[in-house]
């Protein structure tokens, strides 16, 4: 049951004690769960509405010299090769990791996740299967709602759980195959990385396809600053996920990257990597080579 620090609404506690279960599983996933000896005990959810008040420094934050206070994260500077000093000519550029955006995202996601898991613990569940997560803007005032939901399950005829429940995005037959392959679910893992790009003259010329009087120094070339940002934002998310695996495996990973432009030459790349952390509990059994078949209909 939740402790004194629990923020589980009293109405939810009452609902959970009424003796019937709810589930987000499809009928086939429900049947597969029962086959595995996992009994659904409730649809559990967690919410967190985050106000995105301090998303980033605006373009006004661009001073005369590159920004240096990036909380020790990734930062890379780019210097104009033209020796030109003009308000129209971007004499320096910078890529930097927006640690405060990542922290805010992590706070929102982790709060929603721990609230969902708290509901599962209240139900005495051993784990949560079929987790679905979403983030949606609640309004145009910079409020983002994190919502996680899944189906809490109990292992049939097993003692009450003594540890934090495990969680997985998988359910049904896909989860059954994970067990059969020798993996036990540990938790879902999601990580976000954010890299801001303040482009310098060369990036600007290459993106716009112009060089003006400087075209002889730019020409056609790889757009290094954007490439660095794009590769870094993926790498940061992957490195963070890897560091939280502690020797376990990440299955069914999904990496997505989004970009947005705040103003000319001011971009943000955000990557998000999620997957299922699993731990091997037995060695792979030798598998026969698959036998191809053709279905005749």
């Amino acid at each position: 049951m939740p402790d004194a620090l629990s923020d589980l609404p009293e109405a939810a506690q009452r609902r959970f004690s009424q003796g019937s279960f709810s589930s987000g599983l499809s009928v086939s996933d429900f049947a597969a769960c029962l086959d595995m000896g996992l009994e659904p005990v409730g649809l559990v959810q967690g919410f967190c509405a985050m106000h995105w008040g301090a998303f980033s420094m605006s373009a006004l934050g661009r001073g005369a010299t590159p920004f240096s206070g990036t909380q020790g994260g990734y930062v890379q500077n780019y210097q104009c090769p033209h020796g030109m000093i003009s308000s129209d000519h971007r004499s320096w550029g910078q890529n930097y990791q927006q640690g405060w955006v990542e922290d805010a995202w992590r706070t929102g996601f982790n709060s929603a996740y721990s609230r969902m898991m708290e509901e599962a613990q209240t139900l005495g569940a051993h784990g949560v299967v079929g987790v679905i997560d979403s983030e949606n803007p609640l309004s145009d005032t910079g409020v983002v709602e994190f919502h996680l939901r899944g189906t809490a399950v109990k292992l049939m005829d097993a003692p009450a759980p003594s540890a934090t429940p495990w969680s997985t995005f998988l359910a049904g037959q896909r989860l059954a195959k994970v067990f059969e392959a020798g993996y036990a679910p540990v938790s879902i893992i999601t990580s976000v990385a954010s890299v801001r790009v303040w482009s310098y003259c060369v990036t600007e010329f290459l993106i716009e396809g112009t060089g003006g009087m400087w075209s002889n120094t730019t020409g056609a070339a790889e757009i290094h600053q954007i490439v660095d940002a794009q590769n870094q934002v993926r790498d940061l998310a992957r490195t963070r996920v890897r560091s939280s695996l502690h020797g376990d495996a990440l299955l069914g990973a999904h990496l997505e990257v989004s970009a947005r432009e705040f103003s000319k030459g001011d971009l943000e790349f955000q990557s998000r990597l999620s997957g299922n952390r699993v731990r091997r509990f037995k060695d792979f059994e030798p598998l026969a080579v698959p036998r191809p078949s053709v279905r005749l209909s």
Partner: protein
Amino acid sequence: MSTPASTPRPSLRDEVRRALSEPLTTVDAAQSMTSDLSIDEELNLHSIGWEPVELVSAVSLHSIPYGYWNWGQGEIEGASSAHATAFLNATTRLLHEAGAAGGHGVVGVHIDRAVHSTFVEVSLVGTAVRPVDRTKRLERSVFASDLSARDFTMLMIAGWEPMGLATGASFVFAPRRTMSSTLQQQSQNVELTNFTEAMYSAREAAMQRMQEMAIDMRGTGVVDVKVHEGPMSFASHAVGFVAIGTVVRLASPTHQMINPTMVVSLNDATVAFDAQTLS
């Protein structure tokens, strides 16, 4: 898939109970593995003695100077070479990452590419794989393939091996018609040979480049070729043709016949519920 008949297989319930009752002991952090493969794909890989190692990704953007798309004749070389360089750079980075992670190749590479008026963007994401037997040395360069893990498995079973990703791209001007032929054809249903010829020209150049890449990799062919073609919204008189596929070669002395088993479903056809029959 089946297991050897001599070993009695525990029931699924027993396996689940065992999995969930094992204490979560500390494991060697160096053993971490990341993969975007499904569990089915991982099992497929294991069946031929391979395993995933690491999720790898790479990006490249290459610029195309302004004005290349508007007027001209023949191939738009700046655009074609920008595409080739962006693809090459992204692939090189991907292979470098895979090699650093101990992979012998990358399978299931998702290719996102976009051609803009002033730059080409290529993004690759895939899972580095290696033989389960760690004593097996990498005897050739690391490969990348957009074949799924399942297709990679079937390819290996058939005695073939992937050599790498090959691509060919060509962007060609469709010459503008003369004023008199434009006026003449305005009310006619006729073939616009300038566009047809431009498409042929782009196709031949792109296919030739992909084939040259395949030969450079010592491959005997390219499988699962995807073709992207057509006009571009920002260039009214240019067409593009891009071909991407996985280069393969025969690894065993002869092709291994896989002889698929025929399966006939004995299920009755499903009777679908139709709400309209209630009225």
